[in-house]
């Protein structure tokens, strides 16, 4: 019967070691959650089993990332890749493996604006929005709230830099003033120097385009300790329970933005994840879940595990028209597709793919109140 | 049995053997001198006695106790003191600290006294007591090294070319001091290239050639031996 058929393999190519190792752990579990859900449903392509094959893209070592991707594709024979984590590694893999071998890759977290423009032969997608979009959203929020000046610090990589550029450009276009921009390196022992500079420049808020358990956290810690800033604007990389758990109500009044909608997907995923040893609403976990789901749903829709075939079905399953699909409803979706119906995958991130294959980016604006992230509105 | 009797020592540094059935003995209160051409294995023999060499054969017995299998640092408390030929001072420590290290295993309270005696013997060391030994001249270092060994107050004092590079006047005093130390009942074993002066004060002499005992006799007899004089003492 069905079980005798060949397994469907999804490459879980994430930065397991290196500077994003802690972010990646729940992401991978999120991605694998969707895989398991599909596999258990027994509905994919007539009941084929789906397994995840992990590969370490290390985040910063382009060579090792390429080697790992190569192995996944040519040796393990995966049918699609969920990854890579960081924009740099993603670009390397895209150029050297994805295009070379013609395999679909969906990154849950590579958000660099440059990836929108890159030549991908139609094989690359991402469930995260480009940072260019987020920059505009943040500028709008600041403008609406009447904040006239802000200091800006970013984690010094393509993500941080790209996002910072986007924020600065958008904010200044709206007449805001960026008093100072200072990069910070992740994983450093001390951030007093950066905070000293930013504090000296002043500004009503500090925008921290960083990672919540990396330098971004160090920056906030140092600001609070010295009293340099007490209000922060926190883009996606900074939004997470870990931050409020750590600082409690000291961050009250700070504003956060992250991809999200008022669709119930995120909380549904959080519920699914509870008890599985990770948090469903940690950064990029919904994106990772959605990436896996998309890959598999597109295969189902195309009736094939051949990348060249199912790559053209990704946009179709992701967008309207069709029945809305939330986390945990993958079985239903598979059934609809098998019956020849249409679906509109919403998933954990209220996914809406726009050309050239990336999330449109609806964003959620939150404010920290009483040490909790409270949703203000959606953009 | 002699106070120190190292008998039948055979061994080397891992390659071929350097010592071949070499025997060296010293009595309490006596001075034994080892002479021989360069590379004969004199220093190697000293190291063997001190346990810094793996012997394939032979034994070292000190004061009736077999110490063949003791590690060098364990031989120090047994009463052995050694001044090696090269690298014989702690270069980064001051002269005084060097002497203190000599007294490392001593537990008595006479340490200051001994130190004073050493300063009397080598006045230059007193002057330079706070200078790192690495900054001393060649001869001064040699004096520090000997002083350090004397600080141990050993029962057996082993000196590998203590007079190399010291000026004649210091050499004379050194030999005097060695005689004096020997009179207090310490056994002294030394290697010397200033062989004539050394044999002069020696009770026993060993001539080593290519790791083997060639001549063994009293100091006087060796000095008188024409062949020894010509081949090893420079005529």
């Amino acid at each position, binding site marked *: 019967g069905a079980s005798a058929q060949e397994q469907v393999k999804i490459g879980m190519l994430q930065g397991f070691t290196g500077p994003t190792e802690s972010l990646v752990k729940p992401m991978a579990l999120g991605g694998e959650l969707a895989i398991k859900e599909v596999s258990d449903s027994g509905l994919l392509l007539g009941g084929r089993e789906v397994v995840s094959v992990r590969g370490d893209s290390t985040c910063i070592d382009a060579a090792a990332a390429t080697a790992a991707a190569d192995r996944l594709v040519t040796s393990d024979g995966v049918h699609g890749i969920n990854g890579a984590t960081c924009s740099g590694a993603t670009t390397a893999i895209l150029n050297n493996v994805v295009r070379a071998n013609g395999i679909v890759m969906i990154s849950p977290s590579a958000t660099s604006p440059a990836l929108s423009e890159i030549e991908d032969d139609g094989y690359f997608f991402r469930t995260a929005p480009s940072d260019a979009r987020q920059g505009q959203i943040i500028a709008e929020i600041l403008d609406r709230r009447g904040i006239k000046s802000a200091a800006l610090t970013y984690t010094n990589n393509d993500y941080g830099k790209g996002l910072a550029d986007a924020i600065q450009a958008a904010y200044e276009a709206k007449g805001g003033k960026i008093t100072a921009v200072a990069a910070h390196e992740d994983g450093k022992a001390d951030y007093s120097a950066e905070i000293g500079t930013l504090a000296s420049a002043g500004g009503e808020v500090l925008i921290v385009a960083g990672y919540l358990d990396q330098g971004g956290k160090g920056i906030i810690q140092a600001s609070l*300790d010295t009293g340099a800033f007490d209000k922060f604007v926190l883009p996606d990389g900074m939004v997470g329970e870990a931050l409020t758990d750590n600082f409690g109500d000291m961050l009250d009044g700070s504003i956060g933005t992250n991809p999200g909608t008022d669709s119930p997907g995120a909380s549904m995923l959080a519920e699914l994840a509870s008890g599985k040893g990770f948090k469903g609403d940690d950064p990029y976990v919904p994106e990772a879940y959605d990436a896996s789901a998309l890959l598999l749903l597109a295969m189902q829709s195309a009736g094939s595990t051949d990348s060249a075939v199912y790559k053209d079905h990704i946009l179709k399953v992701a967008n309207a028209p069709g029945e809305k699909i939330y986390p945990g409803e993958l079985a239903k979706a598979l059934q609809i597709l098998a019956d020849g119906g249409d679906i509109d995958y919403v998933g954990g991130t209220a996914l809406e793919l726009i050309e050239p294959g990336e999330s449109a980016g609806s964003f959620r604006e939150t404010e920290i109140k009483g040490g909790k992230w409270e949703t203000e509105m959606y953009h | 049995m002699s106070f120190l009797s190292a008998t039948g020592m055979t061994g080397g540094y891992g390659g071929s053997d350097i010592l071949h059935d070499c025997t060296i003995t010293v009595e309490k209160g006596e001075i034994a001198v080892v002479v021989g051409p360069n590379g004969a294995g004199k220093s190697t023999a000293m190291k063997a006695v001190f346990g810094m060499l793996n012997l394939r054969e032979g034994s070292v017995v000190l004061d009736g106790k077999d110490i063949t299998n003791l590690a060098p640092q364990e031989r120090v408390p047994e009463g052995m003191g050694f001044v090696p030929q090269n690298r014989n001072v702690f270069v980064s420590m001051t002269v005084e600290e060097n002497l203190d290290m000599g007294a490392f295993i001593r537990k008595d309270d006479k340490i200051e006294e001994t130190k004073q005696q050493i300063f009397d013997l080598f006045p230059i060391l007193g002057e330079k007591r706070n200078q790192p030994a690495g900054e001393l001249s060649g001869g001064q270092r040699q004096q520090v090294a000997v002083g350090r060994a004397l600080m141990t107050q050993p029962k057996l004092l082993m000196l590998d070319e203590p007079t190399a590079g010291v000026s004649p006047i210091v050499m004379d005093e050194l030999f005097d001091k060695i005689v004096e130390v020997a009179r207090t009942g310490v056994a002294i074993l030394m290697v010397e290239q200033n062989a004539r002066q050394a044999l002069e004060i020696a009770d026993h002499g060993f001539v080593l050639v290519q790791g083997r005992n060639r001549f063994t006799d009293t100091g006087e007899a060796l000095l008188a031996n024409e062949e020894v004089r010509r081949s090893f003492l420079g005529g």
Partner: protein
Amino acid sequence: MEILNALALFTNFVVVPATAYGAQLALGALGVTLIFGILRFANFAHGELMSFGTMITILVTWFLQNMGVSIAPFPTALLALPIGILAAISMALVMDRMVFRFYRKQRSNPIVFAIVSVGVMFLIAGIIRIVIGPADQSFADGERFIIGAIDSRRALGLDEGIAIKQSQLITVVVTAIVVAWLFWFLQKTRSGKAMRAYSDDEDLALLSGINPERVVMICWIIAAALAAIAGTLYGLDKTYKPFIFLQILLPIFAATILGGIGQPVGAILGAFIVAFSEVTVTYAFKKFLTYLGPTDWAPDGLVQLLSTDYKFAVSFIILVAVLLIRPTGIIRGKVI
């Protein structure tokens, strides 16, 4: 008033953080310098040793917190620290026994030791990540601030406040005590002298009756204890994160060498120079000058000597400059 404000500002953003950071580096550098000085190799595993000691401390802290034990207002971790220290010591001794001793017997080149220590580094790093995972852990409890920015503003009656954290004070105090003790230990005690003698010349140390294995053991014990203390205090002040310990090695090594290898006092000095240079040279004096200048006047630019981007470059430039003028470090250290 304005001058006082300027001073308070400077203290708050430069003096206090740099002092605390300096003290943290110093504790790490002490351990490195000890191994460097006595066992004569650059121990790349020191960061992971810090990490390991801290990890155990954290695990014990969690246990204690679960049991409801606390020593408020002090962090519970201080209570758990002795166990962390013991764990680090055991780890160090096991590693020495299984790894380093062999090369000591072989009289390998220091660089071989350094490379082997990279191996040990990998090994411990792997163990740590498998046990506690790669994520961030915060385990600080107890009172956070001795004086907060807002309180001090009120107390001093100034616009600028000075904030001092408890963990900062503990770190500085502990560092001072440890340095004084270490200095005394090395200069005055028998074991300390034996260690210095051993570091100078192993063979000769044997001839003085010094037991080399004992010296090595003491050396590891002190270094590992220092590592556990350093890691824990660092974790209390910031958070614990396994990845950071590789990063922190660089400034620690810089401090060690700057101060003079094998010199405890030098390590401290080096650490503070690194810390202060990083913070001061890249400090933007804009606000500071605004206070000092005439009312309503403010400089246009940030008045910054060098962008913070290059902050660590500063300490290295200083390092190279110092070494060119004084090739043995500030306090004359060993040249290996």
